[in-house]
């Protein structure tokens, strides 16, 4: 977490960094039983070794060892949209050297896709993550310097065909942060 926080401060939000941030947060949560509300899910803790009780990965990671391993939480980034502020491309201030600083907001979305061979377990997993994000949302917002971090949706259940039927639920979050750029003349 410290590394992610450091990189966030240095480089600002980047897709890969936010993917990693959410993965880290979920891994920490599903690595211990104390805070998991559903007893069934508490028996499926994350492990970096094979086999893990639950897979927590980015949706684009190819890992043959985890082929169709369920339950799984797959992290998928949604669209990121710059929100332009007012006029003059968001010109906000000019410092003593007359260097202008431009600000803009970014609004980003992430989905946590919960997959299980049981519809009931997918529902439980979705609810567990949604409640966790509700409870820890203010902490995540503060730690990441987001201006806003909110649970956006808990999708309806859907079915996917694999070797057996798989049920999926997506938990969506939305976050907003501010990015400022100062242009210095050399």
């Amino acid at each position: 977490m410290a590394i992610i926080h450091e990189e966030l401060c240095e480089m600002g939000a980047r897709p890969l960094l936010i993917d990693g941030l959410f993965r880290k947060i979920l891994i920490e949560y599903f690595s211990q039983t104390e805070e998991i509300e559903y007893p069934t899910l508490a028996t499926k803790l994350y492990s970096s070794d094979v086999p893990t009780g639950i897979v927590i990965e980015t949706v684009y990671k190819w890992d043959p060892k985890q082929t169709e391993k369920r339950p799984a939480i797959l992290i998928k980034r949604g669209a990121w949209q710059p929100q332009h502020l007012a006029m003059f491309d968001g010109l906000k201030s000019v410092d003593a050297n007359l260097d202008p600083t431009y600000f803009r907001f970014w609004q980003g979305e992430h989905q946590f896709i919960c997959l299980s061979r049981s519809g009931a377990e997918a529902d439980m997993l979705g609810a567990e993550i949604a409640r966790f994000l509700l409870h820890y949302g203010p902490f995540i917002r503060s730690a990441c310097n987001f201006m806003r971090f909110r649970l956006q949706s808990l999708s309806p259940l859907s079915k996917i065909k694999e070797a057996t039927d798989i049920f999926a639920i997506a938990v969506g979050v939305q976050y907003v942060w501010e990015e400022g750029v100062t242009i210095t003349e050399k």
Partner: protein
Amino acid sequence: MPIISTLLTQPFDQVTCDTIIQGGTRISWSMDPRFCESEDWVFQVYANKNADEPNNWVPVGSPVTNTYFVVDPTQRMYGKDARLSYKVVLTIGDDEYTSPIATTLGNLTVKQQLIANAIVRRASLERSQLPKSSGWLFRRRLYGTPCSCVDELVGTSTDPDCETCFGTGKVYGYWQGVAETLYDLSPATRYNTVDDQLVQGTIDAAAIRQGVLIGEPFVESKDLFVLANSDQRYSIKEIKHVAEIGNIPIVTQITMALLPLTHIAYKLDLATS
């Protein structure tokens, strides 16, 4: 559950015979899915040489527990007579349930049965040169004692990795495995990749094979087939009756998908099969 059970006067759904005149007739049965009782289900098969003549019922072997078929090794029909019939008596505690009578011709007419036998014989002969794969068929339990992982409110399993019900929601999950031969098993295909829609992560969508089963037992979707040599376990998906008479499947083509090696089905014990 007991409320439903008490309303049922006939827990047997169907009793069928796969007849072999010189011995080896298999009497199999299926139960009404609504029938739920404790798991000590003791079945006794009786044979009657003269249809349903009273006082002519003789037990076939010893009682069996928690299974769905019995093989009668005795030749009971001689001459040109085919009036042999079977019934199954289920005992649960002090309760006894008697099945409808099944003739050795199943539910078919004599003519239909002869045609069915000819088809089975021909199918077996035609496929004698084709590769055969021996294995075990595990039929999924559709009824029985609900597992402790079943949610009381929604009545469905909350844990697909439960070692008691194997994710089926019924204690034991599957019936005891039956040795079966799968004919004409198609070659395996593999394509391990991240799914196109970016929803599932790493999958192997192409690990699907087809094979042919001849005669009984009848299979259903979500039953399992285990290949003997490789221990690869497949979930049966699509079932196509290549030949059937009077609604009874004679030759069945199945499409089955390879289960991931982390699937709970790999904990099914083959030693008792």
